[in-house]
């Protein structure tokens, strides 16, 4: 394994981790407010499709991105309506969102499959000076702008959660809604807010999939990444840095399995090895989840997660 292979792998890994990062960060905010949103896979698909549709019709990738985020927010709003106002079971409501999102994506995307790559999308943009740093420059600073947005988002959310009153209020609502309510906070309003913001971020993740990583729409584009993202929240311990690192690890793992499948070696070309490479991200997610739940003394899940206000 030479340096340029590592450089390419890590650089592509950073890009690949975008949908996982945004979806997992969105899920983190939602869960910190006490609402489990299992609908990530559906939200991701619907927003990825919407992003392509709007990007194609307007000719602007930026407009597509905005539309994808709006779609994510709208679907999360449905989840908030079901779970916060109507007090539905959070698990079943999330599953219904998976159906709705998959259906919307598949029906709305039927005419988009033929476009393939011919959709306005985001191109890498090298940051001057920083991208000249050997190795790291290429890995970290020669990326699509969505990656730079993620760099800014991690410390911002870290600060928001740990160092602002609003962040503390969010945690209060998630840990103990009754006490938060007694403090004078509106549990309903805060949960709506963070569930929808979480959905917007997941929408951003979906759009990054269809406008940056693999431009264009195909049915089932996200391939379970929404589910992996939910797992990453647990792995990352409901903390922005942890979630970002977990997303980077999995993005690189996904990229690695793709690279190995595409290589020319006789061993790697055998179908049996290919099978295990394709299984690897899902098996890896299971193994990491088990290790985390087995060995971490305290997972850090919000106490009020899954409970209605």
């Amino acid at each position, binding site marked *: 394994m030479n340096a340029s292979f590592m450089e390419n792998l890590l650089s592509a890994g950073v890009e690949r981790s975008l949908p996982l990062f945004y979806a997992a960060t969105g899920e983190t905010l939602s869960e910190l407010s006490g609402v489990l949103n299992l609908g990530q896979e559906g939200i991701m698909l619907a927003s990825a499709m919407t992003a392509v549709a709007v990007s194609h019709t307007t000719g602007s990738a930026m407009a597509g991105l905005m539309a994808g985020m709006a779609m994510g927010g709208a679907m999360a709003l*449905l989840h908030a309506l079901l779970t916060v106002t109507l007090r539905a079971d959070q698990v079943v409501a999330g599953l219904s969102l998976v159906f*709705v999102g998959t259906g919307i994506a598949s029906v709305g995307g039927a005419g988009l499959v033929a476009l393939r790559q011919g959709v306005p999308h985001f191109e890498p943009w090298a940051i001057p000076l920083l991208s000249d740093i050997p190795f790291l420059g290429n890995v970290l600073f020669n990326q699509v702008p969505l990656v730079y947005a993620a760099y800014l988002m991690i410390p911002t959310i870290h600060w928001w959660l740990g160092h602002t009153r609003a962040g503390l209020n969010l945690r209060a609502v998630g840990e103990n809604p009754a006490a938060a309510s007694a403090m004078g906070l509106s549990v309903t309003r805060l949960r709506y807010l963070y569930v929808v913001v979480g959905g917007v971020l997941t929408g951003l993740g979906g759009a990054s999939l269809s406008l940056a990583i693999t431009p264009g729409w195909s049915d089932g584009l996200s391939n379970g990444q929404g589910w992996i993202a939910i797992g990453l929240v647990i792995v990352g311990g409901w903390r922005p840095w942890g979630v970002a690192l977990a997303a980077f690890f999995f993005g690189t793992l996904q990229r690695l399995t793709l690279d190995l499948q595409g290589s020319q070696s006789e061993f790697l070309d055998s*179908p049996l090895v290919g099978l295990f490479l394709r*299984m690897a991200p899902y098996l890896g997610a299971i193994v990491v989840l088990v290790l985390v739940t087995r060995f971490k003394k305290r997972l850090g899940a919000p106490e009020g997660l899954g409970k209605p206000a």
Partner: protein
Amino acid sequence: MTIGPWQLIPRTEYTVSSRLAVLGLGVAGGAVLSTLLLLLFGLSPVEVFSTIIHSAFLGGFYAISDTLTQAIPLILCGLGCAVAFRSGLWNVGAEGQLFLGAWAATGVATFVVPPGSSPVWTLTLMALAGFAAGALWGAIPGILKARYQTNEILVSLMLVYVASEWINYFIYVRWSQGGFQMTPLFPKNAWLPRLSDWAAEVPSLAGLTLHLGFVLALLAAVLMWFLMWRSARGFEWKVTGISPRVARYAGMSVKRNIVLVMSLSGGLAGLAGMAEVAGTVHRLQDNFSPGYGFTAILVAWLARLHPLGVIVAAILLSGLLVGAKEIQPGGVAVLLQGVILSTVIACDLLTHYRLKRSVAKGPEPIPGGAR
């Protein structure tokens, strides 16, 4: 508790008719919302709904036979989901368990049973293998949850993707027939008998594909009803579902029950996979399931997690799957399922609460006074 101007008053008694009325309201709401969404996508709701109803239910014996045939895997997977959900376990990986059951049954039919064996022997062995493989696949998230509290929703779901890659490897590579994405056709002794097999004696049965798996599914439903409502074990499971703490306090082995329920739930889905390959496709092939294992989640929920309700819900949703095959684009069935599930759970509020218009806050009402 309040929602806007409405006050939520917990219901003190549940009647079957009120619960059915709420369910009906949910489904009706789903139809209205679906209509709006279809219009938004430029599809004609009238055409969609009439196609579904016609090709699934009103199209004569063939239509009904097709609908009942597709209901078989839905009943079996739906039973698996219902048992797990009632026990507080979210097994959402029935699709993967179905894949593995179909795979094991195919392996038995093709490689284990000597050619010319009796059908009874062959099919029994296939069913056992299918159940066992599904049970094993379901047991994995069960064991991980029991031992390490690993989230069973995520693990069972991840295992769907793993199972799909696993069977595709056999469909495309190992057992592929001449490079096509299917295994060779089973020998006749591995086919579940169908109504059309008796067409020589009863000509009107010609072309009807309903197979013996339907009887098997109905038997399984009765068995599950007995297990859940008439056995001590089923009682333990339901108690665990309502409160694991109470179950533990009462001396029930929560961990063992988790593994048992997940295995049973997976086994039923595995059996569905066996019934599908032995009764309908007679081989393992790419995309043989239009998401039965996922639709089963909706089946179980519409059935209010009741084994006998599962039969009714499965037949109705099977109609949706059969009808939606005629409709382009293909995602309509999933969209309608999602919308119906959302509106049904939205209306669930009314099963537990009555809504009362709250009066403006004034002095406390006098006890015993006029309301």
